[in-house]
């Protein structure tokens, strides 16, 4: 079941209001996305926890509805 990029962004935005979010539809099929999420909430947090926060924001869709999401997360530059 494909998901729209705008829906993915809205879910992440709701959990991380400060985030800079970029979503790319890798194949144009609404099923393979790359997302880059930059948020101050990630500062000092291991990558695993950062990704878990995004997955939690997606509310269980990851791995089901949303099969393929290449995820990159980071804190804004200069924020440790």
């Amino acid at each position: 079941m494909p998901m729209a990029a705008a829906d993915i962004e809205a879910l992440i935005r709701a959990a991380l209001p400060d985030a800079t979010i970029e979503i790319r539809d890798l194949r144009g099929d609404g099923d393979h996305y790359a997302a880059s999420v930059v948020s101050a909430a990630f500062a000092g947090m291991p990558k695993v926890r950062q990704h878990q926060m995004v997955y939690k924001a997606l509310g269980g869709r990851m791995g089901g509805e949303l099969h393929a999401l290449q995820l990159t997360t980071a804190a804004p530059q200069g924020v440790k």
Partner: protein
Amino acid sequence: MSDASQRIDALVKNNDVVLFMKGTALFPQCGFSSRAVAILDHLGTPYETVDVLADQEIRQGIKAYSDWPTIPQLYIKGEFVGGSDIMMEMFENGELQGLLAPQA
């Protein structure tokens, strides 16, 4: 602990490097698993794989065990490292090599 999580626990603790994946190292069944295998092969590190497609209990159990919704999942020395995106990032910045180094 459920039967599945006990089995997962044993796999994680008895293997230095273990990759839960779709398919086998020779025949990965998904692009993300394939990428994870390629990284480990490139590093030349010995590793075990567990094919979650061959075991539904593990396939569901590992998601709860790691609190991680997708496969593949890499464990090094009993610690959950992450999925293929994290592996790629840690490979590119050298962190993965550090984790795999003896006496790291």
